């Protein structure tokens, strides 16, 4: 029992805070899309076909969409909206697919009223997880925006490879990877208001979910609205992370209270809220052994002086 309690405390202190840095958002189908060219669904009906594939844990052949038709057959599903605002570095679509014969299927996305096909896969007779990634919006050729994500639809193309039998999909979801940047002392990254810094320190930041060697700009505002510093040209690592990165931003003289970190990925044209931290005046140094030793000669001096006067007095 004791061991279990220690293990739980260990997990809470050391593992959970680091794992909370969720720079990935999972979005699931929440409505049928522009068309449905597959045969139907088991466990769902027309108008709500998305319900067959939006489960959080894939349920195999309990609920699924299927097609038995020859030729290229597509269906489209809308995915959930998000209120996120951070920089999107990647969009990945995941699907659990299988075939009853020897068929092909392709994951696709639908954005800007255009279909973009991924790799064509040869399916197997048991469910296998397939995925396809789009780091940028193939329609605009620019970085993804959250507006793009909110209007995004996904689907599967079933292709006849000769002797069509049946293709099935049981689960679909979309992972949107976005960048995070927060003060290095944030106890619950990516964007809690925690993390205490003092006005005699220089701010360090951490983050992840960025592209390899991506260059971003950062701005820190104090609680009174004054801008403490703007840092241009922070470069992420090859794996898209910032690890206790020394910004060179001195917090000296800034107003105490909740300070805010903003990030720009367009050269400073627009700034987006990313994190907050608690800025405080430096703590009064505690009485330490060192201080005690330093004060010792003074104490001895006064004691000696007192005793000298005592014995000198008549």
């Amino acid at each position: 029992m004791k061991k279990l309690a220690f293990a739980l405390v260990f997990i809470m202190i050391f593992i959970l805070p680091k794992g909370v840095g969720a720079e990935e958002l999972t979005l699931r189908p929440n409505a049928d899309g522009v068309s449905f060219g597959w045969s139907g669904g088991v466990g769902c009906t027309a108008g709500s076909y998305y319900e067959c594939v939006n489960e959080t844990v894939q349920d195999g052949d309990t609920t699924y969409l299927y097609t038995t038709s020859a030729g290229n057959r597509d269906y489209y599903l809308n995915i959930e909206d998000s209120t996120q605002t951070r920089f999107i570095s990647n969009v990945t679509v995941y699907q659990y697919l299988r075939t009853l014969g020897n068929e092909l299927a392709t994951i696709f996305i639908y954005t800007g009223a255009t279909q973009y096909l991924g790799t064509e896969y040869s399916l197997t007779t048991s469910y296998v997880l397939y995925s396809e990634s789009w780091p940028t919006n193939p329609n605009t050729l620019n970085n993804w925006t959250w507006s793009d994500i909110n209007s995004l639809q996904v689907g599967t193309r079933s292709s006849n490879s000769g002797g069509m039998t049946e293709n099935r999909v049981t689960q679909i979801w979309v992972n949107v990877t976005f960048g995070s940047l927060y003060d290095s002392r944030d106890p619950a990254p990516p964007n809690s208001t925690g993390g205490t810094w003092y006005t005699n320190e220089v701010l360090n930041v951490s983050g992840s979910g960025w592209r390899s060697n991506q260059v971003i700009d950062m701005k820190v505002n104090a609680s009174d609205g004054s801008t403490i510093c703007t840092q241009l040209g922070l470069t992420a690592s090859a794996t898209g992370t910032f690890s206790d990165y020394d910004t060179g931003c001195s917090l000296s003289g800034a107003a105490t209270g909740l300070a805010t970190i903003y990030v720009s990925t367009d050269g400073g044209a627009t700034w987006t809220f990313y994190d907050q931290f608690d800025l405080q005046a430096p703590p009064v140094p505690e009485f330490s052994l060192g201080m005690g030793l330093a004060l010792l000669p003074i104490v001895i001096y006064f004691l000696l002086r007192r005793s000298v006067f005592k014995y000198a007095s008549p």
Partner: protein
Amino acid sequence: MRRLRLIYLGSIVIFFLLAGLVVHQLSSQITSEVTITSSHSVAKIGEEVVGRAEIYNPSDSRKLYTYVLYFNGAKRVEDTIYLGTKKRFQLIWRVRPSALGAFKSTIVVYEGAEKKLVENASYIVYVKP
């Protein structure tokens, strides 16, 4: 006689009050300070050069500033910021020059909504192979 003395003392008090007011007004209108520095004066191609500019608001009122940073004459960023009284703003930039010759960082700072020019300062880093 006593009345004259009172008038005299009153005049002195009023004089010092007015003098104090003038000094206060002048101190609150002290020009904002801008400094520009760089980690290198000479750098190699691809080497990271860290530049820094600071704007200080010495006045007794919150002020609006607009700054524009240029790299070799091309605008890198333009932004407006508020600075509280006696507050300091730091602009830090990290660049890796990719061409030989002079790499010039210029910061132009304006004050207020009417954009009164405060500073136009440059720093040149010589880039060598």
